[in-house]
């Protein structure tokens, strides 16, 4: 036995080196090609000698007019280039909401309350228990005050209170971190999928902080867990139009009005997974922010699969047989998520992957089309393109699926898993908690690229690519992980025995 295994390990090591060589060759092709040319020129130059070179130069016969025209042309080309380049969007800083400990929901409390509220449906209680055991959530996730009652009392006043608590807290934290004055905000975008009062949440923010009357405010609702990146995309487009401006984005999900009061199993799932959370982000296109900004936005890719009926209905808000409103999650969810991810990868691949990966993908694609359709499709190695991954903590299954599809290691998905454990599924803001985790661990260095992927109802798969502008040193004294980062990472068992 041993000789065979050493042989296979030898061959896999050899393969690894071959792959590395190939990658180096392709990615630095131009450099490698230029070296012989440069050497040639140098050798020729030394062979000719300085006098001959000077003679060559004089024979070119430049006169002042030519020179002027040429420099004018150069300046024109350079100006056109710089003017038409899209503005760089900086992420100056962001703040995540940290719920107080008195809102925490241990598993046992959740289950006991469930039993009392659903006392006529023991099967539904059993279902919730099984979900919770395998959910990957921890004992410190939080629900808003209205949901702590037996039975919960989700009225509109409580929903507004939760919104104020989460949004204002995140905004105050953002103002402190960035020294931003409320009157300096030019663009405000608030996204909250399931709670959309009149006046809107963005109006609520304008009212609280007395923002300027000519502010460009937007309120996105109904767009699901991927709405955070939709807001980023919207902010980016607006910041192309308005020079020298900044944009504040608030991403949150208000849990209070959406607690499902019925006992339909597919609709009880969100009750088990969704938890309180929110984030406020400051984007800017001002050159003065380029030194202090944490990240630059490189790409945003949005994929909408709503054209497909199955995808459209897989996360659907509707009334159950008793007229109670809830969100129905279909069984095809993971498959549809996988499909939308493939589309997203296909679009983002050419933008971020190194040439070596793109060539391999192209070769396999051509090969499958022309030679043999049974060739396995090549999954590009995204670890070559990104140092960090923030996968929306929608649930354990989502993270497992993406880890498998993108062939990521445990450390790559650590931020997602730990965020799911500590904060639960906070919907659109979960990406920011994950980014905060990576920073708190001291892993974010200048030049690192981060890929944020979010899924949402519709069905949408959106992703954003950021490049780290300056190294972020740990330990971080503020932020949602400040008091618990040392306890992480922890091992999360497959099934937690309640």
């Amino acid at each position, binding site marked *: 036995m041993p000789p065979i295994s050493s042989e296979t390990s030898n061959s896999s090591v050899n393969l690894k080196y071959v792959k590395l060589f190939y990658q180096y060759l392709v990615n630095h092709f131009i450099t490698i090609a230029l070296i012989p040319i440069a050497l040639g020129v140098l050798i020729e130059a030394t062979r000719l000698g300085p006098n001959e070179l000077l003679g060559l130069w004089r024979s070119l016969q430049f006169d002042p007019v030519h020179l002027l025209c040429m420099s004018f042309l150069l300046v024109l080309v350079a100006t056109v280039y710089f003017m038409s380049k899209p503005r760089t969007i900086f992420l100056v800083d962001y703040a995540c909401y940290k719920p107080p400990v008195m809102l925490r929901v241990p598993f046992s409390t959740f289950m*006991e309350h469930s*039993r009392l509220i659903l006392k006529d449906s023991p099967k539904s209680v059993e279902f919730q228990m099984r979900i919770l055991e395998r959910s990957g959530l*921890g004992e410190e996730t939080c629900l808003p005050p209205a949901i702590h009652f037996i039975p919960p*009392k989700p009225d509109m006043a409580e929903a507004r209170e939760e919104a104020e608590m989460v949004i204002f807290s995140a905004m105050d934290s953002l103002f402190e971190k960035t020294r931003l004055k409320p009157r300096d905000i030019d663009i405000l975008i608030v996204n909250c999928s399931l709670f959309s009062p009149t006046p809107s949440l963005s109006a609520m923010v304008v009212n609280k902080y007395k923002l300027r009357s000519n502010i460009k405010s937007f309120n996105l609702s109904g767009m699901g867990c991927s709405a955070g990146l939709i807001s980023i995309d919207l902010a980016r487009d607006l910041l192309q139009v308005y020079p020298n401006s900044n944009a504040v984005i608030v991403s949150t999900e208000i849990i209070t009005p959406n607690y499902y009061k019925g006992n339909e199993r597919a609709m009880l799932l969100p009750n088990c997974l969704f938890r309180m959370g929110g984030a406020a982000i400051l984007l800017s296109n001002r050159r003065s922010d380029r030194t202090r900004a944490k990240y630059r936005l490189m790409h945003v890719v949005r994929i909408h699969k709503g054209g497909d009926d199955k995808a459209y209905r897989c996360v659907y808000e509707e009334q159950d047989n008793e007229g109670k409103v809830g969100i129905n999650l279909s069984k095809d969810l993971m498959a549809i998520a996988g499909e939308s991810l493939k589309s997203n990868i296909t679009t983002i691949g050419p933008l971020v992957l190194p040439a070596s990966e793109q060539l391999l993908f192209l070769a396999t694609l051509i090969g499958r089309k022309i030679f043999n359709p049974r060739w396995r499709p090549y999954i590009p190695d995204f670890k070559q393109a990104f140092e960090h991954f923030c996968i929306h903590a929608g649930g354990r299954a989502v993270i497992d699926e993406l880890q498998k599809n993108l062939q990521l290691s445990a450390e790559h998905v650590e931020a997602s898993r730990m965020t799911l454990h500590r904060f639960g599924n906070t919907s659109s803001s979960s990406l920011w908690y994950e980014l905060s985790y990576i920073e708190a661990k001291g892993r974010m260095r200048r030049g690192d690229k981060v890929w944020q992927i979010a899924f949402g109802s519709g069905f949408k798969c959106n992703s954003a690519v950021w490049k780290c502008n300056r190294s972020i040193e740990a330990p971080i004294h503020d932020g949602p992980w400040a008091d618990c980062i040392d306890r992480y990472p922890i091992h999360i068992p497959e099934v937690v025995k*309640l």
Partner: protein
Amino acid sequence: MVLPVEEKLVHSIRFSSVGPGRVTGTDVVHHPKPMDLAMKLHYLRGIYYFSSQATRGLTTKVIKESMFLWLNEYYVTCGRFRRSPDTGRPFMKCNDCGVRFIEAKCDKTIHEWLEMLKENCELRKLLVSDQVIGPDLPFSPPLLIQITIFKCGGFALSLNWAHILGDALSVVDFINRWAQIISGLPADGLKQLHVSDRSSTAQKTPTKANQEPVSLIPVEPVGDMWTYSPKCKMGTFALHLTLPHLKHLRSKFFGHVKPEKVPLFESICAIFWRWIADVKEGEPQVVTVCKGDPSKRAIRSISNSQKISAVRADFSVKGSDPHELLCLLVDRATWENAQIEEVVERDYGVSDFIIYGGNLTFVDIGEADLYGIELKEHKPLFADYTIEGLGDEGVIVILPAPNDPKSSGDHDTGGMIVTMTLPESLLSKLKVVLMNNGMLQYDSIFS
């Protein structure tokens, strides 16, 4: 009895849970001692009444917030009981499930309520939960706290405490600690709860080996429904023995005895034993006496460390001299803690027993710092505890009374409150005896 009309007095009831702010950890388990298991069918129900000056600024939100800090130190009260799969012995899983928190409102002012309470002691049932542990052990909270807010802004804070967690001194320490935390005293966030070790109680009177304890009465198995229902209907009556009353009783019954040989608790027990024997058919020959033991407690510990003793009278108690009964109580009380523990352990703590009410029981909570609790430097207007899940013989609880705020400087103005839970027929006869002895005219402590 609480009439339906009276039930509407307390309304807008909301249930939620409060637990420790800090995660206790996975698989943290607490094993009740044999003494704890012996008490599992009993419950302590205490109510504290705070005036509006004491409660100013203390919204329900602030109270709940403080409790999350407080329960870090007492995570055992937030767990749930299970049974060991092999022996069936109860143990507690400290899973942070939490204490049940009940909020209610009342349209009377505190003073109006306390006046109504004088007429009808049963009204206290509206202010404290009567839920017991069971039938589902893993989903039954051992502690339920209720805050009832009165029209004037004051509130009543009540606890329904499962006796398996600890004795009366423990509960009083526990709730006093909450008052300290909400008043801003630093919480020992990191200090672990000290669950007091069983220390061998030195016997005052050596007992014969293999003697079955008289105070521990086995009952029919109750399964997972941890309560005992007495066979006859019980009533409750609270009597305030002011200092003049106590002086009068002392001179009447123990006038010829030196004052230092007349301890307060035992003297009240002796008098009531005699009075009850006078009116009850089948006079009680044996009484159970429970006294707290402050010396054996560690700080922040909750445990059942009260001393339980049984006293038997060889003579007829009816018409006897209370001094003789007093001598029995003082000299011949045999502590039965060790035997109780031995009997409970015989079948791994699975059998069910009662102590309170198995014989006529006297419980001394006089040692507890009942009025040591302060909110905004105000003591409660009134506080009392009753015992539920007790046996047919009844229980008499002796508590300190609040100091009269109108008195001039002397601390011991309060006297004692004697709360008696007895069969209704016996209670009415006893009230006649109390009236004949001039005990039922007193200045209201609530005026």
